[in-house]
């Protein structure tokens, strides 16, 4: 059981690290388009990895396997690029890349 705990802990911490990194990117980076990269990739992977951790955990803690958490990961991976694409499109429409740091448009 210890090995399971270790694996779960690993995935959890790795996921949390990536997710936090995504948010740090959101916090730190200088313009919208660069900020977009963090949440799109790091956060998606991070949270996805935590879902996998959960799947592993419950597969060993409950009767039978528990894989449905993987669906969350799957869903995040399918939708994250669309969200990112849309946000980028919206930002391009607002021409944020032309005059950097445009204040709230509305």
């Amino acid at each position, binding site marked *: 059981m210890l090995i399971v705990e270790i694996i779960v802990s690993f995935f959890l911490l790795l996921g949390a690290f990536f997710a936090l990194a995504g948010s740090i990117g959101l916090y730190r980076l200088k313009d919208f388009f660069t900020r977009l990269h*963090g949440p799109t990739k*790091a956060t*998606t992977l991070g949270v996805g990895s935590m879902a996998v951790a959960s799947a592993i955990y419950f597969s060993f803690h409950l009767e039978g396997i528990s894989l449905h958490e993987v669906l969350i990961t799957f869903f995040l991976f399918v939708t994250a*690029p669309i969200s990112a*694409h849309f946000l*980028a499109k919206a930002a391009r429409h607002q021409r944020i890349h032309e005059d950097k740091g445009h204040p709230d448009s509305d």
Partner: protein
Amino acid sequence: MLQGNRWLPHPLMTLTLIVLWLLLMNTISFGHIFLGAMLGIAIPWFTNKFWPERPCISKPMLMARFFLGTFLYDVVVANVNVVRLILQPDIGKLRPDFFEVPLDAQDELVISILASVISLTPGTVSSEISADRSTLIVHGLDVPDKEEAVRNIKTRYEAPLKEMFSC
């Protein structure tokens, strides 16, 4: 590969749904396979009009290799890479920029999958598809060489995708 008919318009989708159902339910009892099959038949029947075209996957093995190999590897690498860039002390050194990828693929689904894949892999977010669908505008987090980036995308992602979906 799997041809649909009036009663089973999307055999592949039906299969996917059954698998998903079992995943959701966390069981593989016969009762749930039965229920999943019922839903797997009923739902595509209802949604057929939304997605009448059956994606033609000519090379399933290539597909598997691509998504479980290249893609998964790139995702992890991309993330490590991005995290490194994000966390580096001097973020002023980044060279973010837009660049245009000319598209060979014409199929909507292929373009969409390509765009998604691009967004999930090294330092790039696809941010616009031109109106004539001939180019994809991509934003890179750190782009020292635009041409290199374009070439990378075209060979590493577009080519296999085109190939696996070409019938």
